[in-house]
């Protein structure tokens, strides 16, 4: 033991305290930096010295500068971030659809369009001879069709938007994994080669990337002894030490619709993530928006087919002189229920009415549709033949596979009655709507144009003197009518079910998201409790270090004075 030794001890202390001050200063500087993990200097007593039979302490030494972080909480936070981010995406998807539906406005929503449309038929009942009332029905039908179509197209846009986000996610994943890989290498370099300190800021930077990646994918993070982290998703490693695996966008075709999906570039296997934004985007696209679109299509389908079924049985103020079926059949020799029509007709029959307006004479003809799977089921060709044999009209097949019926003279009109088979609705003959989904629903062109509104089939008693409003009466209670194709539900029920699915989904996703958010915040709080910088704490540290520094300096001064005494002897 010597005075110089004491001075050296003091100098070491000064240095250690300076390092402490440096770290405290750094902590204070980053007090406001999000994600920053406070650092702590680990002091330990310096190795001891044997002095005679005494063991003398040799002061303090700095062992390491470590990050104060709870790794366990951090791991859990990674999972929580994925859950919260995924739930937020779903919440957003439901909100988008709710915004589209605007169900509570009572003025512009789909429900109102439905009700207004059916209501307008009441005006025809009041004045069956008036074409103006019929025109209103067609106009209201137009509004309904437009509402359905625009809902469908806007929902499709939302769906496309989610698809785009799937695509952009791929590059984000690649950028993040690259950053993590690069930082892995740096951290390993910095912390390796016997250093006992943490890499500090680089780790914070890497953690930021990991956090973001955890939002996108349900990743599991494994820190290696080297300080590098390995990141895997559902068993596939995205980052392994200093390497990473690239992902790419691929187009998956399902049911005729092309969707984007993400796969591993090397193995071409799909990237399956249990949580996070990516699966949420897919779910939002395919299940939430997709399901809504499907429900909307179903609704439009029920509307088109069932309304048409009633409409096709009625007669307008005037009959048809010429008519081409809206829907076509590729193979006219196929039984009508196997010919690929959007709606499937069944066995039944209808009546074709040929009306001579000049003479006021009606001639009714039975047309049988046999579709029981036994011998001789009715085909489009046969139906055409049956119709063609009726006096006063000619029926033929167009080159595009449509049924065309033309009256044989200018005096003759034709109309339809009592279709129990649904074949007229299926073929698009004497129908109100065209199409079978919300995308392609429309108003039959036969009803368009000046004077054609009179073809709105309000009558159930035929053309001419027996014309009445019996069919309009059936149409006017359409909303309350149990629909056979909808399993006995009414159209209002189907609509309510659609709205219910969306609003329940929205409610649930809202509370689920809130739950995840609180959970994440709680974990974040726990993390911050360990890793957060407290200025008060740092200030106390600062003073302590300062005081030690001052005391050490004083100690050196004392030693120095002792040396002076020695020197001046």
């Amino acid at each position, binding site marked *: 033991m010597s005075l110089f030794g004491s001075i050296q001890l003091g100098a070491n202390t000064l240095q250690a305290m300076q390092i402490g001050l440096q770290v405290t200063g750094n902590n204070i500087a980053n*007090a*406001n930096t999000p994600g920053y993990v406070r650092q702590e200097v680990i002091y330990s007593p310096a190795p001891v010295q044997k002095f005679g039979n005494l063991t003398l302490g040799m002061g303090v030494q700095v062992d390491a500068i470590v990050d104060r972080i709870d790794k366990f909480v951090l791991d859990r936070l990674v999972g929580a971030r994925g859950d919260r981010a995924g739930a937020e995406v779903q919440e957003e998807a*439901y*909100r988008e659809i*709710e*915004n589209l*539906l605007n*169900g*509570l406005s009572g003025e512009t929503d789909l*429900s*109102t369009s439905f*009700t207004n449309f*059916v*209501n307008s038929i*009441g*005006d025809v*009942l*009041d*004045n069956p*001879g*008036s074409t103006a009332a019929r025109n209103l029905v067609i106009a209201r039908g137009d509004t309904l069709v437009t509402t359905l179509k625009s809902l469908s197209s806007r929902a499709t846009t939302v769906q496309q938007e989610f698809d785009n986000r799937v695509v952009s996610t791929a590059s984000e994943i690649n950028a993040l994994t690259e950053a993590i890989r690069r930082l892995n290498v740096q951290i390993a370099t910095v912390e390796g080669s016997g250093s006992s300190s943490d890499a500090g800021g680089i780790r914070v930077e890497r953690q930021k990337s990991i956090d973001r990646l955890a939002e996108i994918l349900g990743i599991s993070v494994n820190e290696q002894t080297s300080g590098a982290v390995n990141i895997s998703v559902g068993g596939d490693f995205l980052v392994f030490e200093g390497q990473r695996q690239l992902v790419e966008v691929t187009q998956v075709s399902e049911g005729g619709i092309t969707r984007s999906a993400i796969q591993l570039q090397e193995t071409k296997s799909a990237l399956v993530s249990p949580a996070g934004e990516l699966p949420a985007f897919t779910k939002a696209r395919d299940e939430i928006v997709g399901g809504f679109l499907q429900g909307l299509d179903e609704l439009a389908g029920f509307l088109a087919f069932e309304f048409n079924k009633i409409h096709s049985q009625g007669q307008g*103020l005037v009959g048809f002189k010429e008519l081409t079926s809206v829907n076509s059949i590729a193979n006219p020799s196929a039984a009508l229920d196997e010919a690929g029509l959007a709606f499937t007709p069944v*066995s039944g*029959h209808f009546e074709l009415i040929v009306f001579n307006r000049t003479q*006021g*004479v*009606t*001639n*009714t003809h*039975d047309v049988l549709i*046999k*579709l*029981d799977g*036994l*011998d*001789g089921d009715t085909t489009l060709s046969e139906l055409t033949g049956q119709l063609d044999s009726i006096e006063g009209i000619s029926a033929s097949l167009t080159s595009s596979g449509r049924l065309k019926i033309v009256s044989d003279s200018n005096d003759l009109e034709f109309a339809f009655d009592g279709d*129990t088979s649904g074949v007229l609705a299926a073929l698009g003959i004497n129908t109100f709507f065209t199409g079978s989904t919300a995308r392609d629903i429309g108003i039959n062109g036969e009803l368009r144009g000046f004077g054609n509104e009179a073809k709105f089939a309000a009558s159930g*008693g035929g053309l001419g003197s*027996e*014309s009445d409003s019996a069919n309009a009466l059936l149409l006017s*209670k359409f*909303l*309350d009518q149990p629909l056979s194709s909808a399993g006995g539900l009414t159209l*209002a029920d189907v609509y*309510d079910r659609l*709205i219910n699915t969306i609003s329940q*989904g*929205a409610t649930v996703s*809202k509370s689920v998201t*809130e739950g995840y*958010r609180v959970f994440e*915040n709680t974990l974040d*709080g*726990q993390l*911050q*409790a360990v890793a*957060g*910088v407290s200025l008060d704490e740092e*200030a106390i540290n600062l*003073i302590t270090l300062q005081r030690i520094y001052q005391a050490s300096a004083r100690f050196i001064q004392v030693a120095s004075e002792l040396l002076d005494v020695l020197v001046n002897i």
Partner: protein
Amino acid sequence: MAGITPIPTSRVGDLFVRQRLLNQAQGDQLSLFELQMQVSTGRRIFRPSDDAPAALRAIALQRTILRKEQSERNLAGSRSVLGSAETALSSVSGVLNDVRGAALGAVNNLTSSDERNAAIATVDAAISALITSGNSSFNGRYLFAGSRTNVPPFTQNGQFVEYRGNEKTLQNYVDIEQLFTTNLPGTEVFGGISGEVRGSVDVNPHLTETTLLSTINGGEGIDTNAALSLNVTLGGATTSSIVDLSGAVTIGDVIRRMEANPPPGGASLRVEIVNNGLTVTTSAGTVRIGEVATGRAARELGILSPPSVVPGASVVGSDLDPLLRKTTPVANLFGTKGTGRMDSTGANNDIILTAAANGTDGNGVTVVYTAGGVKGSEAVGYDSNTKTLTVAIADASSTANDVIAAINANGHFTAKLDGRDTTSVNLAGSGTVTINNFGSVTSGGSGTVLDTASGLVLTNGGKSTTLDISGAKTVEDLLNLITHAGVGLAAEINATGTGINVRSVLSGTDFTIGENGGTTATQLGIRTYTSETLLADFNRGIGVPSNDIQDSALTTITDDLLITARDGTALAIDLDTAATLAEVVALINNANGNHVGTTAVTASLTADGRGIRLADSSTPIAGDLTVQGNAAAETLGFLSVGTASITDNTVDGNGNYSLNSYRHSREDDFAIVARDGTELWIDATGATTVQDIIDLVNNHARNNDGTTRVEARLAANGNGIDLVDTSTAATGNLIVRTAEGSQAAQYLGFVPLGETEVSSNSGSGGSFMLTSQDRHTLEVDSVYNTLIRLRQALAASDSVAIGKAMERLDVDLDRVTFASGEIGLRLRSLDVVQTRLEDESVQLQAALSNEIDVDLVEAISNLTARQFAMQASLQTAASILNLSILDFL
């Protein structure tokens, strides 16, 4: 408000504190803003997920409110229409009362032409006023036209008024699920369509393979989700199969499905249409048909085997009674066609044969395939005596299709392929046939064929037309022909779907439907003049007044009645003491020489009590039974005035010769004088139907004294009664002469009004014929009819007719009053509905408001509370952030 996040227990970092404080402040602000939005918009929820159950209820409520609003609009429309109708009818009773007053004045003073003309002018004015009322419209909709709202319903057609609307009602929903009839057809207010000409005829349409199941059992159809079970017992073992009939549309579908699903065990089933029902026959064993579970298909198809019946080889179903439809072919009415199958060995060659016409003639036909034919031109011959259809075929070379073509070309039968035997569509009918004899293959033919060759005679509005219906293929064609014959008649299928109704739409005139030499109208049940027609309905309800004088006493007869029995015994009966016919009968039976030995002339009163029947059973037969002509014989009515004698030598059923007398008296209404001078005196008293009059003539004693002189029958052409004189000793004309004081002959239409006699010297086949006028005319019951009739009566100064018209006027007035009352009633019930709708509207709005509207008091107090909370939170945050140890260092 943001979620509540727990605070870590150990230590708190500055960043964490600030972030948390920031979050809290943001959460508070968000809540404040939400409350502010609620207050400013008045809405509690902005999107369904804010409160999903309430939102769903709100959407349903919004829909209900919208529909109630439409109901209110519909109701307002209905109210306007009914209100206009009420206004239009308000003047009608006034007009009718004016007419009554004018007519009353005129009837009291018929001689004054001024008075009469004034009354006629009033009637004319009333007619045109009522036409205007009847054609009232509102908003372009004719109020009294039924559902034909764009056509003025009442139009002046010459001197008549035609109703061009229909009888349909228009309905609208004045509340959800509450239908309301918004119109009264003109027929219910003013009248305008006559009652139906409707007989009791069921035209009995055939059951065919294309008959729709929905039309059988009188339109009740069968349960569409039906199934039935087939059970065949063969060799002591019973096997069953279930036949699913769901989705079957026609009888043919049922037949095919039953034949395609025989119970396992080898027996095949054949299902045929016999006598409008199904007959199921098994190829072996016995067959029973049962229900599946609680179904009723077998019963509805008429083929349920009752447990009490011992099973046989076949089940014969009951008549399925298909509805008459517009598309029913005319050939399928009034019976069934015999039908059967020719089953040849091999596939694709079985043929179903059907007779071309209804009736039993088509039953039991034998079909023979003989050799000697050429493939492709097989010769077919039918012998109707032996009921044998012979087809000359090329053995094992002619195909079923060839045979079918040949039979169809022959025309006596129609043939078609039996689908059961067809293995594939391409091969249908390609199987060859061999020489064979199918004994008695057809059965099930019944009934008759509609006479389409003769046609109908339609008369209305003074126009008469003969309608040729030979071109009518379907019932609708027939209806169209009648409706569009241009005489103001309308034909339709009756409500029960069993026959057709014909009605007139022309007010102010008579209409009739008669035969054109055939049976068409009678068969269809639309003849207006049938044997059952009541005489009371003749002459527009006046009837046929009969001379009802009681005159049973005989004037003293001074001559002896001289009878010679057939054994030659002459009987002379002194009638001085006889005062009644019964006494004459006793005198004859007790006459000297009568009932002595083998002489037996038995006298009795004829059934009508108006004559004496002499039955001569004397033996041996040496000559005729003779009554000699003289005043006594003439008075008693044995022979006509101036006739020398009357004899009979024909043996009746009891081996007697007989003679009848008919004593003309003052009770008689008219005499038919045959060409041989025989007077057939007819007393119409007690006759109630046309048939009674015909019977009176045909059963008249003078017509049954061995010679039929005048035959009465329903007119072969048009309507009326044909009197056909078949007298052989023809010298004079056929005459109908009225008895003094009787108008019966006039009212029956034999003698024109104002005349006493009518005669005919023409006819066909050597007979002279007289046809009565059709006095059973029908008319439209309407106010216009009454007025036009009144006008005609006034012009003719016919006080009876005026009186009749004024009676009708009361009925018309009642009808209009009733209709007005009905409209008033409906308007009142609309008031009730409206009040209810208004109440409901308030309730619904309140309910909707409950669901989605904000409670302002609550929202504002929440706002205030939150404001305070935020203030406190900010203050505490500020003080926390201000605190730092640095300040104390």
